[in-house]
């Protein structure tokens, strides 16, 4: 069955290894994966900035690019949330496009959601020797209900021990453009997150969104922590992929 991988703009630019890991996980689960070459961004920056037109233009392209795919899988709760929760709002008042947006929303999944709910053959063969804590990214958690799925998958990773931190559901302070409009507040929020990560004693923080990843890693290193690893859940589940 054909699965379309929406890599997301941040993964494409900042951490291609996450895209390769997602690809590997989907292929290992027995899917034929297409990665539409013209894909760029889901339009979330425009949407959250209040520029409906900019968001609409990108949403329309994305809908067309993934029209042929039975499923669309996204290694980001935030971008999956944009498609699922907000595309229908973007096209409010346009019946034809709204129907398409809803239809796409119905077959779009965040990666861990897809691997636990749809991909019945998904196995986890990776190994990770160490302790990790999981940061629940806001959009994934509150817009589409990603909470148990990554934990369920991480539990299958040999050698991995999950330690929950305090306030794992509290925002890390990224918030898209918030992080550069209100840099000091954003950093202060990231600092609280880092303190909770540190207090958990875990050797790595695992999460499902690149925005949070950049924010948390940037703050961890800045506060002098050179060793706590910051990993996307796809990277942990797939093991090393290069990239």
């Amino acid at each position, binding site marked *: 069955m054909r699965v379309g991988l929406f890599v997301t703009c941040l993964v494409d630019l900042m951490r291609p290894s996450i895209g390769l890991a997602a690809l590997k996980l989907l292929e290992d689960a027995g899917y034929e994966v297409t990665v539409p070459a013209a894909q760029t961004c889901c339009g979330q920056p425009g*949407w959250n900035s*209040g520029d409906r037109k900019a968001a609409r233009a990108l949403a329309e392209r994305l809908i067309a690019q993934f029209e042929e795919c039975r499923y669309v899988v996204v290694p980001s709760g935030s971008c999956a949330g944009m498609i699922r929760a907000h595309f229908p709002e973007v096209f409010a008042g346009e019946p034809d496009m709204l129907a398409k947006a809803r239809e796409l929303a119905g077959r779009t999944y965040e990666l861990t959601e897809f691997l636990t709910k749809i991909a019945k053959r998904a196995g986890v063969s990776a190994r990770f020797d160490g302790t990790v804590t999981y940061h629940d990214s*806001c959009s994934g958690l509150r817009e589409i209900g990603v909470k148990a799925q990554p934990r369920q998958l991480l539990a299958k990773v040999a050698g991995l021990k999950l330690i929950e931190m305090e306030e794992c559901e*509290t925002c890390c302070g990224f918030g*898209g453009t918030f992080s550069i409009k209100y840099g000091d507040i954003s950093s*202060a*929020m990231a600092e609280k997150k880092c303190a909770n990560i540190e207090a958990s004693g875990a050797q790595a923080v695992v999460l499902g969104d690149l925005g949070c990843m950049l924010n948390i890693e940037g703050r961890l290193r*800045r506060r002098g922590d050179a060793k706590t690893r910051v990993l996307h859940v796809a990277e942990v589940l797939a093991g090393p992929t290069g990239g």
Partner: protein
Amino acid sequence: MHFKARSEEALADATLQANLRKFQSTGFTALRAKAVAEFGPDLFEALRGEGAAIRDRSLASLDAWLERFEAEAVRRGATVLFAETRAEACELLVEICRRHGLRKAIKSKSMLSEEAGLNEALAANGITPIETDLGEYILQLAGEPPSHIIAPALHKSKEEVADLFATHHHAPRKDDIPRMTREAREVLREHFLSADLGISGGNFLIAETGSGVIVTNEGNGRMVTTLPRVHVCITGIEKVLPTLEDFSTLLRLLTRSATGQAISNYVSMFTGPRGGEDRDGPEHMVFILVDAGRTDLVGGDMQEMLRCIRCGACMNHCPVYRAVGGHSYGWVYPGPMGSVLTPSYMGLANALDLPHAATLCGACSVACPVKIPLPELLRKLREKQMDRGLRPWREVAAVRLWSWTARRPRLYALATAIAVRFLRLLGGRDGMIAALPFGREWTRGRFFPAPKSGRTFRSLYASRPKPAARKP
């Protein structure tokens, strides 16, 4: 001064930060979570749905319920006055004082009083207002506005309050809470007994009985509404509920969402003045119901905001509020609800920062007892700003340039390929960018992790062996 400047000061204020940390660790979120767990999460979820539906029903026929409220309240001997503006609310109150010859007002907590600047209006007309809610009393001594809608003085430490009391009570400084509270009680008792006007807010108005309700914990509200000759309840017109049954549902939601209590220490319902066999109560009972921008929201895309029952859960759960405190928001209402209300009531252009002062993390709307989609309302306000040309040109240009480039895949691929190499170079050996060009806001408090590979995903993907070739 705007939100950004105020919030930066708040972040640099060590005392405030310590007080905020204390608020967070001992605060309302854990109490709420416990109360929800005890009530049953699924039941509570259903209750939130009911609460939202009740508020929507009330707002859908707001005019009719207000007329019903007025008729029932008048029938029971109260006077009902409507004020279109905050200034008019003040004028009506001053006029009541003049007519009855009132000189001293004791007040229980009222956010509308803060909105209207009631204390200033009273003082300007020779009437002494005394705040009797302990938090509000502290702030009246300090000459500060509240920083939270139900815990107005949470930004103050015990030590700061001890100093204030010592100065204003002309008594030896005490810094243990029971003794401080006793001292405040003794001072306030004099005021309770000597005031001729009691001013309360109103958490709800019940249309079918013409009653006002206040939900409190200190008991001062009951004194304010029963001891003085005249009681004036001042509140927003949106607070009306059709029935007592509706009220009982919302009360369950309100106290649990606010402080995690199954019910507050006091729930006071006032229906008309003293009459018949009543042994206490005011001789005159007046409702001043204030519009001040509320009807402008009815029927519009911000109407859901009028559901608000002022529990404070949105700010308690807001990581931005918890980082910077309530004063950063600049007007009466802080936190996510304030970031919607302030631009709605004071004008979009007068609060440009606020709708953007959120990460849209959604913690507020999940906690909201009446399911107000706060992040969505904030986003809509951002859209209105954009549509009215109220955003800085750089920001507009950046968003448009991004969208324009992202619609041209070849150009986009080229631009990102260059960007990724450039960023990797900036990252140096440890892969951390300490000063990001055009991104100083980011790197002031953080590094920016550089791309680990010098190539984009699309370039790596394009050069990987074709699936057909990989098959055995």
